[in-house]
């Protein structure tokens, strides 16, 4: 199922992106996630590692923070296609996310300043959204949207985009082991609200995992149950309309005034 969906999304992006360069209502730009909150839920309270060790999982609530290069990072390109009140948008984002587990000695969630107890993974995100613009006549256009996000994980892209400063060898080994238990392609359903201002936008997006994250379900160990994320995304448009669109508008205007 995941493989078919992944192929469809990649195929869609391949068709959508070049096609939209020649479309009439095409815009593209960059996205930056300014605020991010994430939550990973496990089905057991303890993770047992291959080195016969165990870690207690901390409180499974949302872990949030202002995104920086060292903390949680999510940024990339978007390609937008407008059609009347509706629009379709594809994105290509790099994402770095981290989830914390308890320090077994101090029995508490580590301070944000220390990254030693963070389980971090980096991936490429390919969200495809479909939405409607609620009031096109105003300068600020509210919008509702939903879609599917495909996440291609660290095992696919290696450590090239790993940004967390994991210093200790043991912690790195633990992170690697946890990442090795995850599938390399995961899927989310996302939905949200946003507002558009001169083709730039801000969105509040909720993402919920819809695929099984675990390569193998172990009934005697902690498996990832679900991952939820909330992103506050800013999009900055570089091109308002495509060359074809501008030429078409000029010709219409010329006909109108002639």
């Amino acid at each position, binding site marked *: 199922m995941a493989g078919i969906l992944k192929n469809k999304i990649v195929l869609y992006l391949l068709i959508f992106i070049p096609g939209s360069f020649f479309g009439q209502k095409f815009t593209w730009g960059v996205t930056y996630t300014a605020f991010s909150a994430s939550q990973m839920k496990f089905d057991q309270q303890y993770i*047992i590692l291959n080195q016969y060790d*165990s870690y207690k999982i901390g409180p499974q609530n949302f872990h949030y923070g202002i995104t920086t290069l060292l903390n949680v990072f999510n940024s990339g390109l978007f390609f937008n296609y407008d059609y009347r009140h509706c629009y379709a948008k594809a994105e290509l984002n790099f994402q770095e996310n981290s989830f914390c587990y308890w320090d*077994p000695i101090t029995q508490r969630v580590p301070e944000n300043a220390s990254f030693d107890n963070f389980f971090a993974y980096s991936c490429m995100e390919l969200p495809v959204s479909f939405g409607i613009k609620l009031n096109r006549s105003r300068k600020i256009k509210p919008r509702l949207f939903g879609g599917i996000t495909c996440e291609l994980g660290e095992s696919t892209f290696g450590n090239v985009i790993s940004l967390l400063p994991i210093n200790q060898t043991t912690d790195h080994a633990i992170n690697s082991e946890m990442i090795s238990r995850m599938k390399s392609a995961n899927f989310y359903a996302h939905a949200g609200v946003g507002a558009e201002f001169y083709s730039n936008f801000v969105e509040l997006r909720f993402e919920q995992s819809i695929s099984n994250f675990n390569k193998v379900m172990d009934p005697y160990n902690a498996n990832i149950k679900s991952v939820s994320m909330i992103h506050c995304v800013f999009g900055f448009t570089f091109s308002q309309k495509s060359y074809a669109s501008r030429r078409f508008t000029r010709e219409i205007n010329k006909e109108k005034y002639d």
Partner: protein
Amino acid sequence: MIKLRRLLLSLSLILTFATCKQATDDDSTDTYSNGILSVQTVSYNANTYIFKVRYFVLSANNSNQLIHSETGGLPSLANFSSGITSYTFSCTSVSTLSTPPSGHHSTVLLLDEGKDAPYADAPLREQSSRRFLKTSGDDYGNNFTLAAFASGGLIPHDPVSIFSNGFITNANVFDIPLAQLHDTEFGGTSPVLHALDSIIQYFKGNASPNKNIVLMSTDLDDASPVLEDSLINRAVRNHIRCHIIRNSDSESNDLLLSKIAIKTGGLITPVQYLVGTDLPILSSRLNDILKGNFQCFEATFQMKANRSVFYSGYSLFAYLQLQLNPGQPTYLPFYAQI
């Protein structure tokens, strides 16, 4: 020609020195796990008692296998006097042999979670328990269970709680209970004998010819209403070996524990939780020790007294001394009885 010979001699001396230095460096970083496997009476008369002690010294540098016999030197026992009787010991021989094969084992791993079990030891105890259970589980044919005891606290059943429904072969079942035991700080006293006695009763339905209890003891027993001799008799009658891994950092009754271990045919080994290097070695080889055909040393000792003291029923409690690290002798408690 002479110059060339001198040059070669100098080179060979330098190389020899460098090799020796390298060997010394390697030895100084080695870590060991050691224990007493059995004590057997060979012969005795009124003034002389000859007995054999089987012991092992596993080395991390030697892939957790037995060290070479010359590394640790000859084991020794300290001479002592008691009243007007003085005793002298001499080690007459040390040989390497294999213990008799015992086949696959049925084992209860019994953890002491009493109030005096230092909480800082919990991670090491948990990892080592898991390592032993997983190596036993990977070895098809063994079955085992996990039990823990502490009077009061959060251990649900008194005097001992068993964390599976009977003997099982899948060690993964104990992953979460071990993590929970690690995570919880228990209170109460440690009724070691009471817990051991309950586990011996629990073994009654088990038909395995190789029945073992591995006790990780950390505490003095000051609460059990059970007599040690009746417990030992019950274990011997049911062919159950009681192996004791005792915490040498805390105060414990070495005489009592070594008596239980040796008389039931089990091993006794002191582990240093604060150092933390010996328990991982032991736990990786414990499955092999329980199955038998395990390489060990056998030292023969001659004990002499200046008076006629040796008779049937005579018992001895002493510490075998090994020189594994220079200036730091290792002491292994053992119990012998004629």
